């Protein structure tokens, strides 16, 4: 396990190194993603021109929630970005066979190929958002709070990354797996708003089926001290469960893949 994690980081560092080769691509990716996020923020602002709260949440609180989700996403992008297009990039080109021949679990190799161009921009933007909203909301920024924000940010990143990893197995059947993962990923947008605004079906969707809400909503409720909530304590458990499922699903897909041949 330790060996695998070490190797994962070796692969990741190699992959980030190689990304540095393409500074222009990186910059373009970063700028366009930040522009995209700012447009979304403008939308939220427009909504608040017509109302002063959404399900009891005011503008600043909502932006805090938004920032928390963005922090989680930045972690996901940094560590698990490569789950998007394994169909096209690895399986279809036959590169996956060389990965299967390595003395590590193929998932480690695949995840280690992440090359994000968005993580840094998101991280900076999310920290700016979170800090400025905490100040505006007169929430004192204690060491404990900072630790909490980082801790739940990382776990949130792992939850979303785990969900992506589960759906990435679509790549074994279709080289358009990026669209499958992308569609699922887009559902995280639902968790950028307080879940009170949703009906039961959507609530179940984003807390139980695809627990995006644990990467944003529940931590936000805790930081805002809206109510005593103990649910935050199960976030690590949820992360672990997601990853157990992800690894099992992957092993199952690998078995299928090896019996059909490619």
């Amino acid at each position, binding site marked *: 396990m330790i*060996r695998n994690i*070490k*190797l994962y980081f*070796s*692969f990741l560092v*190699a992959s980030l*190194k*190689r990304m540095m*080769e393409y500074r222009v691509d990186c910059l373009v990716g970063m700028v366009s993603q930040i522009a995209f996020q700012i447009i979304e923020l403008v939308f939220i602002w427009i909504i608040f021109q017509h109302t002063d709260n959404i399900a009891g949440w005011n503008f600043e609180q909502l932006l805090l929630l938004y920032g928390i989700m963005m922090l989680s996403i930045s972690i996901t992008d940094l560590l698990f970005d490569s789950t998007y297009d394994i169909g096209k990039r690895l399986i279809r080109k*036959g*590169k996956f*066979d*060389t990965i*299967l*021949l*390595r*003395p*590590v*679990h193929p998932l480690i190799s695949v995840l280690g190929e992440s090359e994000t161009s968005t993580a840094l921009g998101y991280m900076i933007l999310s920290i700016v958002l979170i800090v400025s909203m905490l100040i505006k909301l007169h929430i004192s920024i204690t060491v404990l709070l900072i630790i909490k924000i980082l801790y739940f940010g990382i776990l949130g990143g792992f939850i979303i990354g785990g969900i992506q990893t589960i759906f990435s197995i679509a790549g074994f059947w279709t080289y358009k797996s990026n669209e499958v993962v992308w569609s699922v990923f887009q559902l995280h947008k639902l968790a950028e708003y307080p879940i009170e605004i949703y009906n039961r079906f959507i609530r179940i969707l984003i807390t139980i089926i695809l627990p995006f809400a644990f990467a944003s909503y529940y931590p936000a409720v805790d930081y805002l001290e809206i109510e005593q909530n103990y649910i935050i304590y199960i976030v690590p458990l949820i992360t672990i469960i997601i990853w157990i499922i992800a690894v099992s699903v992957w092993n199952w897909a690998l*078995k299928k893949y*090896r*019996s*059909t*041949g490619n």
Partner: protein
Amino acid sequence: MAIIEVKNLVKKYKISEKENGILGYIKHLFHPKYKEQIAVNNISFNIEKGELVGYIGENGAGKSTTIKMLTGLLTPTSGQVVVNGIVPNEKRILNNKQIGAVFGQKTQLWWDLPVIESFKLIKKMYEIPDEDYKNNLKKFTKILDLKDLLDKQVKNLSLGQKMRCEIAATFLHNPKVVYLDEPTIGLDILVKENIRKFIKDINKEQHTTVILTTHDLKDIEEVCDRIILIDKGTIIYDGEKEVFKNKYGKHIIAEFIIQNKNSNITVETIEEEFEIIEENETSIKIKFNHERLTIIDIVKSISKYCEILDMHIQEEGLEEILKEIYRGELIND
């Protein structure tokens, strides 16, 4: 005990039979129909430690399929593979540690990284001791002439340069068994020779077991001691290369330089063992069965038609033998 044991190995591929058009596609979605194709049909062999085996056969004979099963990339439909006491398909990671493999032009190196960085990652993956790594790197750099390549990115290397690095990467962790599936495809003669020499050297030093598939029979001539010949999924020969040549290489090719030809040379009574491959005003090339005829017989019958100035005699190589086998001319026992 043999290092590779293969017993009654079978691989059937399922090929989906889709009908044309969108309707056929939808039909297939709900009611998939498959056709089975047997790629490897009940093969068995044992390979001892340190053997250099050439695994040959026509396109589509089932070579790559076999290699994929030996490496654990592909699950056999039935039958058994044991490599150094491990079933590759069940204990993949453990098996991967002790083997190395090259598949044609798929690279195991990191495309955008300098070669040396890939080597360092490989060192980490296989947990190669510093000492071994240093020694191997030095040795491989020398034999394969990698000195100027190590700092280049893989994507900027030519095919031959890439393959040399690829071969080095494959042997870096002192694997016990190495599978090479068409490692010389597309390479020039010098690089081919370089790689052959490398394989032979390492085999001598480390007793690495090597299974090599190739369509360049020079590879086999120079590297392998043993041949396994597969045809339509079944093994039709397994044994020493020299024995193979003696058994099937019954022909000799003689080329005569001639002048004053008085008529076209016709094949008379001895038709079956005597074949004119090429004929023109100044030369003639003849293939004959050396068990039935001698070169003297040939000279005698040709000299009736022309004056012989010179001649070259050549034993039939693997290539000619295989051509005959593939055409179905030789094996009927």
